[in-house]
């Protein structure tokens, strides 16, 4: 496991994180959830920026506090609202990165920046949102990292810029021994990228599923009140009252397709699953 959180607890006023999760080698794992759910807090715990009150955080198989500089160099980081000072430009960054990361690939970094149309002499704070996001990813990719920790890397980007960034991440995963832990509000981005995902709500992991399983087995049933009364609800995860009756989330859509052929069923998407898991009620 490249990252392992075991019963990690952290309390703030009005918020409590209680999180367990794993990021295996060679996989892209997403951490999803609404604003304030605890995604950034979880990332901070993994990066050693906060100190959990209980539980264990391990990265590369050792407690995060015991990680050496060399091991930390194997992590590429994108934080949603933080980077190098906006008063620096890309040219300034190259000697800084060269001294921070022993495996920094200057030529490759500069070539990629040029290919993505990033002006080398413009201050970071003067770059557009899309350019700044691309730069953050390029910095994370510039030093041969084994693990990428990406907090909202596509936030505020248009479809094209998002697709460019996702392509970069797909290319990064080609060697097979690398991993990504990513959080995003835009779950559609993640459907084509992630192997599995965790759903966090109010500081607690409420769901962990492989993306293929979710897309293949999860379904959203739309039933009237009458249909609901006769329905076998043993395979229903969440229920939500609607004007027509109920929306029901199941992780065994095939069962309902075979046994209740007349029922209206929609394919489960990550967005629908998130909405139902968080807004829906347990049966």
């Amino acid at each position, binding site marked *: 496991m490249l990252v392992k959180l075991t019963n990690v607890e952290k309390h703030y006023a009005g918020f409590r994180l209680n999180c367990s999760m794993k990021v295996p080698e060679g996989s892209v794992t997403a951490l999803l959830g609404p604003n304030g759910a605890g995604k950034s807090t979880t990332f901070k715990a993994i990066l050693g920026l906060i100190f959990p009150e209980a539980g264990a955080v391990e990265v590369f198989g050792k407690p995060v506090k015991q990680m050496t500089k060399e091991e930390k160099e194997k992590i590429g980081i994108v934080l949603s609202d933080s980077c190098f000072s906006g*008063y620096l430009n890309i040219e300034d960054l190259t000697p*800084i990165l060269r001294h921070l990361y022993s495996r920094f690939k200057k030529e490759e970094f500069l070539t990629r920046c040029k290919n993505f149309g990033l002006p080398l002499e413009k201050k970071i704070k003067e770059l557009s949102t899309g350019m700044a996001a691309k730069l953050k990813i390029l910095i994370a990719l510039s030093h041969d990292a084994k693990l990428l920790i990406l907090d909202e890397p596509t936030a505020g980007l248009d479809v094209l810029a998002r697709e460019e960034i996702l392509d970069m991440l797909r290319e990064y995963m080609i060697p097979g021994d690398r991993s990504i832990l990513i959080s995003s509000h835009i779950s559609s981005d993640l459907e084509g990228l992630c192997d599995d995902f965790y759903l966090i709500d109010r500081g607690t992991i409420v769901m962990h599923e492989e993306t293929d399983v979710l897309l293949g087995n999860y379904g959203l049933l739309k039933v009237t009140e009458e249909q609901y009364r006769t329905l076998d609800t043993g395979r229903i995860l969440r229920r939500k009252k609607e004007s027509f009756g109920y929306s029901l989330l199941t992780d065994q859509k095939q069962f309902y397709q075979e046994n209740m052929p007349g029922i209206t069923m929609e394919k489960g998407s990550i967005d629908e699953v998130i909405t139902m898991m968080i807004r829906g009620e347990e049966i």
Partner: protein
Amino acid sequence: MTGLIIKDWKLLKRQGRYYGIVVALACVLSLSGSQNFSSFITTYLTFMITMFAFSSFNYDDFDNGMLFLMALPSGRHDYVKAKYVFSILLITGGWILGVLLHLTLFTFRFSLADYLEILPSEPVYLLLCLIYIGFAFPLLMKYGAEKGRNLAFIGLGILAAAVYLIAKTGVRLPALLLTFDRLLQTSPLTALVILTAGCILVLWISCLLSMRIMEKKEF
């Protein structure tokens, strides 16, 4: 650590024009003043450069930058070490520039022999600025750039007010300070060695304290 020092240096270079104005202003003021006022250039430049060492914390705090800096492989201890090394080098550089300008301007207006008489007092400005960052940096590390700097200025203000009151009211200085003052007059070199040793001690303790503060800090 080197990467972080380069970062601060690159940020300093962004303010090159501003520091050019500072140097020019110091030269003009120094040229227009009396012989006694001439050392203003050393004091002024050393102090202004010390202010940049402070402002490098503002750059780090800008746009939540500390979060990213602390997530870098260099870590918390290296961040502290980089800040001290960079600031000491920077302030010493500013002081050397001040001394060279002072020497040039003073020799041009008065004489080299007169300058050599006041030369032993020059390092005092450097050492005082270094001692000041020794007191201020732990505050900046603990409370952040804005609040920490304000607290450091308040401390400096209280000290300045105390010095002013002592001078104005003629209150006797504590025995230790009186001895040091006498030593400064009779044996300036010994006084400087003692002050340098005190400065190193303050910076060393300050650096250890800052590391401890950063170790415990959450971002």
